[in-house]
């Protein structure tokens, strides 16, 4: 019911904009989108599904590596000495956007077998790493002192406190971190594909359509595809979040 309302609101706003000649009509776009799902576009010859798969593979690899580092490192930030050693470095590197790494990453990966792919994965890595890291380390560092005190009084050393208190307490933060990180990782791959490219990917598709011109329905189809994939990834992670029965819940 509510979903239908939500959808209705969205489509109405879109029709209004089309009426004002700002966007192509939803139905035109829908037809283009449907066509692109099965047929390649004349310019690139690939379906939007093929482009999506390329992008998804890059995102999954890049963010996967990012999470492999950001989760343990974020948790370890709970240690004051790790925090004070790494925090300044990470805080200086963090605001450098993934895109700004493009020139550097090309040079860094020059000797690798497939440098464009490495560079793109690296850019996704940079994009996914920092937001997930910030969220996870925020959580870990905010572990309530009551629980730390509890573990201490029972003789838990720092290692045990980390494993039995900080980590379980931070699990919701880890999942939120993964969600936010995947989001930014997804953004980064699209951006990376827009600038440097290896012949496929949704960002590449949008950029080529934009450059060739006159393909607003194709561009919006590409954006819609990005939205749908992002929505899917998020929905899966939200399902995961519900798995924690002790997780404080708001009313439903």
């Amino acid at each position: 019911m509510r979903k239908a309302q939500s959808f209705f609101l969205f489509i109405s706003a879109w029709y209004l904009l089309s009426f004002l000649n700002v966007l192509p009509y939803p139905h035109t776009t829908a037809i283009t989108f449907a066509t692109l799902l099965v047929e390649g576009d004349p310019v690139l010859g690939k379906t939007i599904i093929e482009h999506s798969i390329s992008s998804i593979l890059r995102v999954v690899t890049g963010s996967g590596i990012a999470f492999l580092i950001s989760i343990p490192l974020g948790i370890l930030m709970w240690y004051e000495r790790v925090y004070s050693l790494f925090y300044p470095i990470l805080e200086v590197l963090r605001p450098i956007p993934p895109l700004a790494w493009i020139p550097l990453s090309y040079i860094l990966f020059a000797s690798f077998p497939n440098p464009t792919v490495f560079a793109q994965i690296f850019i996704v890595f940079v994009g996914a790493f920092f937001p997930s890291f910030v969220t996870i380390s925020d959580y870990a560092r905010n572990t309530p002192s009551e629980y730390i005190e509890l573990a201490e009084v029972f003789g838990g050393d720092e290692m045990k406190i980390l494993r039995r208190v900080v980590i379980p307490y931070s699990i919701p933060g880890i999942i939120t971190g993964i969600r936010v990180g995947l989001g930014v990782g997804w953004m980064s791959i699209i951006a990376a594909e827009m600038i440097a490219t290896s012949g496929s990917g949704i960002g590449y598709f949008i950029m080529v359509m934009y450059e060739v011109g006159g393909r607003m329905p194709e561009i919006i189809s590409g954006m819609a595809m990005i939205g749908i994939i992002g929505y899917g990834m998020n929905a899966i992670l939200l399902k995961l979040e519900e798995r924690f029965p002790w997780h404080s819940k708001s009313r439903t």
Partner: protein
Amino acid sequence: MALEVKNVKKRFGDLNVLDGVSFTVEDGNFACIVGESGCGKTTLLKIIAGIERADEGEIIYNGRPVKKEDIGYVFQDDRLLPWRTALGNIQFAMEMRGITDKEKAKSYLELVGLKGFESYYPHQLSGGMRQRVGICRALVVNPEILLMDEPFASLDAQTRNRMQMELLKIWDRDRKTVIFVTHSIDEAVFLADKIVVLSKRPARVIDVVDIDIERPRDRTDEKFISYRRKIMRCLSSINHAPQT
């Protein structure tokens, strides 16, 4: 062989909380601390446990500083980990010491009447049940020194009496040193070898009463009632409050 609290002082900013508290509990003795709400009992227990630092003074156990391994602690708030079940919370304390013995953890839950609630999460337990899980957690690690901060406050009379007797049974078996904060003078007289009476804030030791009654004690006993009256008088004298 004793636990010695020596001239402990503590301030929180402008608030003077502990103003030179000293007393000694012989090894294997059961001591109760009574004192007005807000006088500093919890603070004192935390200092003994080493999770709060004293401004002055020291805690000596058998001639050396207290170690974490010596301590079992029952918090005034139940302080259960929300992501662990009742059983998991008890196992938590064991894990902190590198022990794993699920059966032992279970047997303690049974002891406090929580058989069948092993897999309940804290938010699914009643106030008294949560507090009992907290007690199991402290007992399960077999501490040399057991610090208990009003552990029975949220129990009904029956359960409370049962728990008091269970506690005495365990204590009698292992003869650990116990420091037990309570507001119930009845409870203090029933349990303690020695009652430490604190003044109102800033807390000082106003009296230390040795309870010289054979166990098991009878609450209707002449001697019991006279001890009770003594402690009450002692408390009310400091508080300058009318006694009911």
